[in-house]
């Protein structure tokens, strides 16, 4: 049962990821990316990481993607930008990328193939990972990484503030 659900979610994730890349309308592409995020969150959930699944939705689908769509929506010019996009993209350009990522895909499939048996997935799902375990890990062995990420975000915040302020001065 869990394996079937996993495969459905995985298929949805792959399909919507492919559609994200091929859509010409930027907002449509982003919406497919949101669906990919939701499908990935479902996969986390099926693997027993309910906390990570919830965070995947709250942070990625609910905040980061909203900002992406927000900005794209403001800059979007309807038909004009779709035509522009169509001119930029030629299928022959993506040949190399498809070839290289195809090799990686085959490797991944080779590595994953024995893992995804019914018993293994069920065993994973029964091993629930709670918020407490994640918290202990984050503030235990990974404390340095958390601090570095915090520093990075603070830098980005100060940078954004600086850019916005200069813009305001020049416009008045």
């Amino acid at each position, binding site marked *: 049962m869990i394996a079937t659900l996993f495969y459905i979610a995985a298929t949805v994730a792959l399909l919507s990821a492919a559609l994200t890349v091929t859509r010409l309308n930027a907002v449509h592409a982003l919406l497919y990316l949101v669906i990919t995020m939701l499908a990935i969150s479902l996969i986390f959930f099926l693997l027993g990481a*309910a*906390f990570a699944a919830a965070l995947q939705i709250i942070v990625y*689908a609910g905040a980061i993607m*909203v900002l992406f769509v927000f900005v794209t*929506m403001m800059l*979007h010019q309807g038909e004009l930008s779709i035509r522009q996009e169509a001119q930029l993209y030629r299928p022959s350009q993506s040949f190399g990328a498809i070839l290289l990522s195809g090799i990686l895909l085959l490797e991944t499939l080779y590595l994953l193939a024995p893992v995804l048996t019914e018993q293994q997935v069920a065993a994973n799902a029964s091993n629930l990972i709670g918020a407490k375990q994640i918290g202990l890990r984050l503030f235990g062995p990974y404390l340095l990484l958390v601090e570095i990420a915090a520093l990075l975000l603070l830098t980005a915040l100060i940078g954004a503030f600086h850019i916005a302020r200069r813009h305001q001065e020049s416009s008045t």
Partner: protein
Amino acid sequence: MDEIIMPLIILLLLLLSAATLTWVERRILGLWQDRYGPNRVGPFGLLQVVADMIKLFTKEDWIPPFADKVIFVIAPMIVMIMMLLGFAIIPFSPQLQIVDFDNGLLFFLAISSLSVYSVMLAGFSSNSKYALFGALRATAQMISYEVFMGLSLMGVVILTGSFSLRDIVEAQSEQWFFIPQIVALGIFIIAGIAESHRAPFDLPEAEHEIVAGFHTEYSSMKFGMFFIGEYLGVILISAMIVTLFFGGWQGPFLPPILWFLLKTSVFVLFFILLRAATPRPRYDQLMAFGWKYMLPLALLNLLLTGAYTLWNQ
């Protein structure tokens, strides 16, 4: 069998109460503003709901030719689906809860952050400037207020030690959380109003500035879905306030489900009273208030609650 029938009954009751709430709001606003409100159809105007429903269903369901058709149709569905999904985790009474989810509180936050998409996509797909303005306002407002809505709830989580709403209600058997978490309650109510974009924070649909905001181009039942979705949002936020801060179903004498409904209706009425009593702030005031006062306050509350809990251990 019970797992299928119970959620269906709850869904039906929710939709009915959201529809009735449209009448309740207009009557009570009438009372507070010293006028009648709808009182012609049926006893006390109660059948006004039915009349409105007939009107909405028989109106022409018009999709503007310049709209992005698929997204235009999906947008009102998102708000309905998200709001109804949110009720899945609410513990109405010790027996009556659709799913007792370990991460129930996170589920609620996820639902409220995903419902941003409905207003946003409505504004985008309408392809009209007022709708876009409304959507931009709504998105910025909801993303900002979501941050401290989440932060304010963490105090309750620290006191309980669990994300499960059932655990949170049971942890309040001796003392309701609005006493130790009074700051969090204030922040949560304000953020809740902003999330469901009700007056006084209804700037995304402020009619004197941007017509009807994000649903300017919507007509017929698609508009009706935004409308009902808003009331469902009000009920959901009220139910969450009761669950998190006012002991959920707990109370003496009366059966638990009645206590829950009673407490929830008090907060629903409070939402309506707010609409009657307060003027709209300016949009930049709204955003500045959020980031400059609410966020530091929420962080301070979290810090103090954490320190207190550690001190007592």
